[in-house]
């Protein structure tokens, strides 16, 4: 797909909008449909789109394997970390109301970080699975 000029130009134009839309879905998930999962999937779809148009090695250069593998684990750690923060500040595990000066603000802060963790893990896992499927050589002819 590298030779098609229209596809390359349109892809480069579209990708920032897709990423901004993913961020909008993530952070506006409190007021409209959205949230962590949808945003994570849209981020992964943006990177898959880039890999389809510009080739897998270019995508691997943009988002290296090590970064993706780190993202996969980091999201779960963020989520569990919010729970542990609740423990350290005086409440039970995953209590949000102790996280800030007022319970409602604590809830908002807890929900924010939890959704960030979910989005990071989901986008990392989807992108990693795509890398694994697309990077594998078809070995049927060798056998």
């Amino acid at each position, binding site marked *: 797909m590298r030779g098609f000029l229209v596809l390359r130009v349109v892809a480069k134009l579209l990708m920032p909008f897709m990423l901004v839309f993913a961020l909008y879905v993530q952070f506006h998930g409190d007021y409209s449909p959205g949230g962590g999962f*949808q945003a994570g999937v849209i981020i992964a779809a943006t990177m898959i789109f880039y890999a389809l148009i510009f080739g897998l090695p270019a995508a691997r250069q943009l988002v290296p394997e090590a970064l993706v593998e780190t993202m996969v684990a980091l999201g779960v750690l963020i989520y569990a970390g919010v729970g542990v923060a609740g423990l350290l500040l005086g409440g039970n595990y995953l209590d949000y109301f102790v996280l800030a000066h007022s319970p409602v603000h604590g809830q908002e802060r807890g929900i924010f970080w939890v959704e960030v963790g979910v989005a990071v*893990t989901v986008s990392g896992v989807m992108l990693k699975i795509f890398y694994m499927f697309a990077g594998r050589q078809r070995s049927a002819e060798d056998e």
Partner: protein
Amino acid sequence: MAALTLGIALQRNLYAVVVLSGAYSFLMATALVALDAVDVAMTEASVGAGISTVLLLGALYLCGGEEAKPLTRPWLPLAIALVIAGALVYGTLGLPAFSDPTAPIHTHVVPRYLHDALRETGVPNVVTAVLASYRGYDTLGETTVVFTAGAGVIALLRRLRRRKDGGHKA
């Protein structure tokens, strides 16, 4: 959607089946919007028609895209399917009617969620509030499931990566 499902069952070219399943997923998302489930529709459209299609196409590239003709006519599975359908229809006769406000699903804990979510969490989207705050443990478990799936795929597919001579890469 029934027509799409029939096409998926009968079609033997697997690439066509993948396209049909993507169309099915979009129709399901539309039906979900009609049922006021907007978060779920967004997730189903992005995950079902986006990620699933990409993964299926990747797997088909690695596996070959044609299904073999079945050797015997599948009467027994068809009979089993019809019997199960009959039993399920009989079972649903006792369920509450569509959009019945006095059904048990609307009367136990949901009025409390709808009344208090904005006041207690400051988040108008009740689905996000319930998902992240009232039922936060479930979401932690789900994130762990996604992580485990990623780890499992890494464990399964890590060998034989980009070696032209077919040797294993440890």
